[in-house]
């Protein structure tokens, strides 16, 4: 720990909702303002911007605000910036920023993820989806077979787990039930009603074994994390959280795999870069765009053996707020909304600072893991409050 490390300082989040009418740039500004206020920084002290996946003109709801636009719109004098989709996944924007501050290219970097999918779908005249005649690149291997959603791609990993390792619907349900129970305690969560096992088991299938409640839903929101250099912490008024290790590994950039997912090498690489071990971790915030991904992350991070993820969360007590390894304490994406990766790091910081209020985990949490991504995409952050 020290001057050469990277820290998450201010964090912020806009209103979280569906079909919001506030401009996505202004939602981003709302989150920026909250993060600046918490850190005691002014916009003039920001000298870097990092985002995932950058502005995506073909899917503006998926990503409506690019780093270049934010820099220009907020009058930021950036000495470093980046935004793009060809990175380890959503939180890859944070690992990039951490490298920027560790190499002296910036002191305080705004990292953000703004999503506007529900609003864009409701207002196609303003957020049109361009018609495409033919599919290209990676999607040519899935779209012609009407495998049109990551739900379908992810469901096939989950089905393999069901058949090879005996994952049950009751086990899988614990991700959604835990997330929804925690979301009920999070005033910003998109879905604030708890979910019962009976409701879960009665839900319609989306792509077996994933049912409606195993999937996140389109959300409009912006989440900001400020990454600051270790030698700039004297400018910051909030408790800094150190990025103790980070990883984002890939071997096959392909969804066409039977069991291999990028979370597995990423999880192993994370622990190879730190003296911390799994037993030091007080809470995990694991990507659950689809519930099964959180189970894969538990295995990938070595909290249980590969194939044991379902049994590890059986009954839900272990991963509950008062359990030995509280998971997705803000609700995850299934409960809190499709904040798309950034919600997990945001919540890790909330918990490590003891600011979780009704959903604060007991004790004095000091170490958390936050992850993003599924399939060939994976990023893991190990976060510590010194």
């Amino acid at each position, binding site marked *: 720990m020290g001057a050469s490390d990277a820290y998450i300082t201010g964090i912020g989040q806009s209103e979280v909702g569906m079909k919001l009418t506030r401009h996505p740039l202004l939602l981003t500004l709302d989150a920026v303002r909250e993060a600046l206020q918490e850190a005691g920084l002014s916009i003039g002290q920001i000298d870097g911007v990092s985002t995932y996946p950058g502005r995506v003109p073909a899917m503006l709801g998926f990503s409506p605000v690019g780093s270049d636009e934010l820099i220009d719109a907020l009058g930021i004098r950036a000495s470093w910036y980046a935004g793009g989709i060809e990175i380890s996944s959503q939180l890859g924007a944070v690992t990039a920023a951490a490298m920027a501050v560790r190499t002296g290219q910036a002191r305080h970097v705004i990292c953000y993820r703004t999503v506007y999918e529900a609003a864009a779908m409701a207002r196609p005249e303003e957020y049109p989806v361009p018609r*495409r*005649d*033919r*599919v*290209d690149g*990676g*999607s*040519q*291997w*899935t*779209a*012609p*077979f*009407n*495998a*049109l*959603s990551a*739900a*379908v*791609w992810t*469901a*096939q*990993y*989950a*089905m*393999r787990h069901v*058949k*090879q390792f005996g994952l049950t619907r009751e086990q899988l349900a614990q991700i959604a039930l835990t997330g929804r129970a925690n979301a009920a305690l999070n005033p910003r969560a998109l879905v604030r009603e708890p979910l019962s096992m009976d409701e879960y088991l009665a839900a*319609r*299938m*989306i*792509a*077996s*074994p*994933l049912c409606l409640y195993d999937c996140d839903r389109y959300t409009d929101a912006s989440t900001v994390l400020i990454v600051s250099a270790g030698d700039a912490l004297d400018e910051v008024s909030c408790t800094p959280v150190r990025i103790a290790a980070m990883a984002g590994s890939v071997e096959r950039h*392909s*969804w*066409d*795999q*039977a069991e291999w997912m990028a979370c597995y090498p990423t999880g192993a690489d994370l622990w190879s870069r730190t003296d911390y071990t799994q037993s030091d971790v007080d809470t995990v915030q694991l990507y659950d765009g689809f519930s099964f991904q959180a189970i894969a992350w538990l295995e990938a991070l070595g909290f249980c053996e590969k194939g044991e993820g379902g049994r590890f969360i059986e009954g839900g007590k272990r991963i509950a707020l008062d359990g030995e390894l509280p998971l997705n304490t803000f609700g995850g994406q299934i409960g809190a909304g499709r904040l798309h990766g950034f919600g997990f790091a945001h919540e890790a910081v909330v918990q490590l600072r003891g600011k979780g209020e009704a959903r604060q985990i007991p004790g004095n949490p000091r170490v958390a893991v936050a992850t993003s991504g599924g399939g060939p995409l994976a990023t893991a952050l190990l976060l510590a409050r010194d």
Partner: protein
Amino acid sequence: MAVPRPLPRLDSSNRDFWTGGANNELRLMRCLDCATFIHPPRPVCRNCLSENVATEAVAGTGVIATFTVNYQKWHPAMEVPFVVARVAPDGAPGVYLTTNIVGCDVDAVEIGDRVRVIFEQQDDVYLPLFQKIN
């Protein structure tokens, strides 16, 4: 399915895969130096970096490595349910093809089932679908 499928844009690397069905052939890219199959097809071998690659016809049989039954209508015209699977073609280790399992009830599909390719033509594309071998 009567509803048109999204079709791939054909190029020099993928054309053999998507049109081999005209000759009833499932054609995969392979390295002529180290024999590694290269899928998605590219003009270089990911194992030895040889550029000496060409497509070859494989048996057209295989095994279901995993699958899902798609129930969600991702667009209003979509006909559900249907099976999406990843098939491991015989004789092509390391390759998995996302495809549809057709010609049987969606509940009759299991991991490990033996399957054989059938081609569905749409425009200039021959989609390799699979059906169970009984």
